């Protein structure tokens, strides 16, 4: 009797394996990519699935780089149709896509602010990008043309107008897109304000990048994982710490956390939207044109994402924390998206 059961189980297993060998057609859009765009992409997917006859697209959170890799690996039903990115496609990735016979439509969907925040009970911070660089860079100029290991222990060491608390910054690890953007937007801007580093950028771009992008490793900067919620929790527990995270997490936790004012601008919806707040980046998604018409609903999904109901200032994505493009940009971008304009690089 036992033997029969075993044989039955084995045959079920074999049957299930052999069944999948058959190539499959897909009637569901597959989206991969950035975890920053994920909350917006999923919201559109849900609304799209609910309001049209198409199936709800499947959205994976793989990170911008991981998404590009999957997206550019080829044309065919086993490859995703759309990838989200919290940065622009790199020329290397674009080349790989082209080599694999993929033509792309690029859609810029909005902005995301990166916030330095601390607990409500902690001190107020008024920072410049120079302060941020001086507080967090691994090496800083010594004023004599050379570099020294960052000696700053407290914020007041960096700039005497800042609080006297110890520098303790919780931020994302190097694998995160937020970290990439933070380093590029805040640290690099700060580094460029030193004449010697500015000169270095002209003469040796790579050496400049090493200086501008290296975050100190002596304990003042703590890698707190990719989960922004976790960073927020830790800030509430430790009022002296400052955290680096996405604007939507500040928006949701405004009762417990406040954002540092950077270059005289507080991180608010309006100031990120009009470009005053300096640490903000663009969010994108990329469409595989070869799949339009093969997988039902792609063109309709792109239209839904770029409709005013979704990404407009009163749209449902704003409720989820997206910072919309200016009106004129939205109009031209929506037109481009509708026409599925091919990206050239």
């Amino acid at each position, binding site marked *: 009797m*036992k*033997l029969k059961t*075993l044989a039955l*189980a*084995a045959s*079920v*297993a074999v049957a*299930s*394996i052999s069944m*999948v*060998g058959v*190539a*499959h057609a*897909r009637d*569901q859009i*597959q989206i*991969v990519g950035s*975890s920053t765009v*994920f*909350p917006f*992409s*999923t*919201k559109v*997917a*849900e609304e799209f*699935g*609910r309001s049209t006859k198409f*199936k*709800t697209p*499947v*959205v*994976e*959170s*793989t990170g911008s780089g991981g998404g590009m890799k999957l997206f550019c690996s080829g044309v065919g039903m*086993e490859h*995703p149709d759309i990838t989200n990115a919290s940065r622009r496609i790199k020329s290397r990735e674009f080349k790989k896509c082209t080599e694999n016979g993929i033509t792309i439509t690029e859609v810029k969907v909005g902005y995301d602010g990166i916030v330095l925040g601390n607990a*409500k009970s902690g001190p107020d911070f008024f920072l410049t990008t120079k302060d941020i660089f001086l507080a967090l860079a691994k090496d800083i100029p010594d004023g004599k043309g050379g570099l020294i290991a960052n000696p700053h222990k407290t914020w007041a060491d960096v700039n005497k107008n800042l609080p006297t608390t110890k520098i303790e910054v919780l931020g994302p690890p190097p694998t995160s897109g937020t970290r990439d953007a933070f380093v590029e937007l805040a640290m690099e801007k700060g580094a460029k304000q030193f004449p010697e580093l500015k000169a270095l950028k002209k003469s040796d771009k790579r050496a400049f990048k090493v200086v501008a992008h290296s975050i100190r490793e002596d304990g003042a900067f703590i890698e707190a994982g*990719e*989960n*922004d*919620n976790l960073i927020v929790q830790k800030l509430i527990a430790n009022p002296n710490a400052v955290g680096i995270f*996405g604007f*939507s*997490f500040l*928006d*949701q*936790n*405004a*009762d417990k956390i406040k954002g540092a004012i950077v270059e005289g601008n507080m991180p608010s919806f309006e100031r990120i939207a009009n470009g005053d707040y300096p640490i903000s980046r663009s969010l994108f998604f990329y469409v595989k044109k070869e799949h339009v018409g093969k997988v039902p609903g792609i063109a309709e999904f792109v239209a839904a994402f770029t409709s005013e109901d979704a990404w407009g200032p*009163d749209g*449902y994505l704003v*409720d*989820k*924390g997206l910072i919309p493009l200016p009106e004129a940009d939205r109009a031209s971008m929506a037109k481009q998206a509708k026409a599925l304009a091919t990206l050239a690089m």
Partner: protein
Amino acid sequence: MSERTKQRYAAERRFRLYGLAAIGAAVLVLATLVTSIGIVGMPAFFQTYIKLDVTVDAADVESGRFRQLTFDAVYAFHPEVTDRREKKRLRGIVSSGADREIRLAVADDPSLIGTTFPIWVRSSDDIDIFIKGQVSRDLPQEDRRVKDNEIAWVDGLVEQGRVETRFNFSFFSTGDSREPEQAGIWGAVVGSFFTLCVALAVSFPLGVLAAIYLEEYAPQNRWTDLIEVNINNLAAVPSIVFGLLGLAMFLNFFGMPRSAPVVGGMVLALMTLPTIIIATRAALKAVPPSIREAALGIGASELQVVTHHVVPLAMPGILTGTIIGMAQALGETAPLLMIGMVAFIVDIPQGIFDPSTVLPVQIYIWADSPERAFVAKTSAAILVLLTFLVCMNAIAVMLRKRFERRW
């Protein structure tokens, strides 16, 4: 009593005490963990509902204007609100899925068409959290997501008895959603179920047959030693490696669908195979040789010895090993990332080829979401996962108790 004997007794007592202290510490840690998750997660099992008076005409049903109907019903509470932004706030009191609830109610009972009827719909997540007392009224307005006028509106509704907190049944019957108040765990539970079914169907027969061969038939030589070492090694390989293998083999080579439980199940089966093989071999080894000899002695064939005597006697051990392996697989996310099961999926999977996600992935996605209400959902999902794990381990204990034989 001599001094030395006394010392030995004291040492004995101390040793016992150490053990007791160790258990005590473990229980304390576990209790703290479960209680804190329970306290955080409890609100997710309840949901605030708001009573609307909706008027539905036949024409509305025809054109499907349920969204507008919902808005109109909410606007009716405060006709004095005319500003566009304020109106948006006002209608934001109820969930964006409220129109669907009304549509379903009308579809259920067509006699409602042409009448004005009361209906309880979900509140939005911000209002839900506010009603549950997780947002303080004393904070300055700009620090709250629920603004002063919203508080006034909601207080008015509470006075009229239009606000109620009920048990959130749909948490156990719907799939994921980006709106915390509409999100449910059922999609992930079904996905986990399909994935584990596939994992079990693949790993159990393979594992048991491999173990029987190795234990009962295989000659003792260098090859079997090599295989044994490798199986033990596999048990310690980080699980993401199995995910990479799954991506390379099942997706890229065999062209199986992404995000499907069938692939997830096979990847997890590879992961649990070593556990099952090792447990089965241990169980087979524990069957006394006298049983085999007696059976052979009265003329049973080797096949009969194994299938009639050895395997049935080893079954409790085999099943325990399998269930523990499955429980491990239930909690795994890393290998599933590679094959696309870390995904946002709204539809409840209907079979092993439909895109789906699993419980631990659902926890991960919710834990990563900015909306405050997902904090409670995350803990609630952890409670559900823990319940499943406890059940599976309880079944393992029960099976062992029931079929265990002592010699």
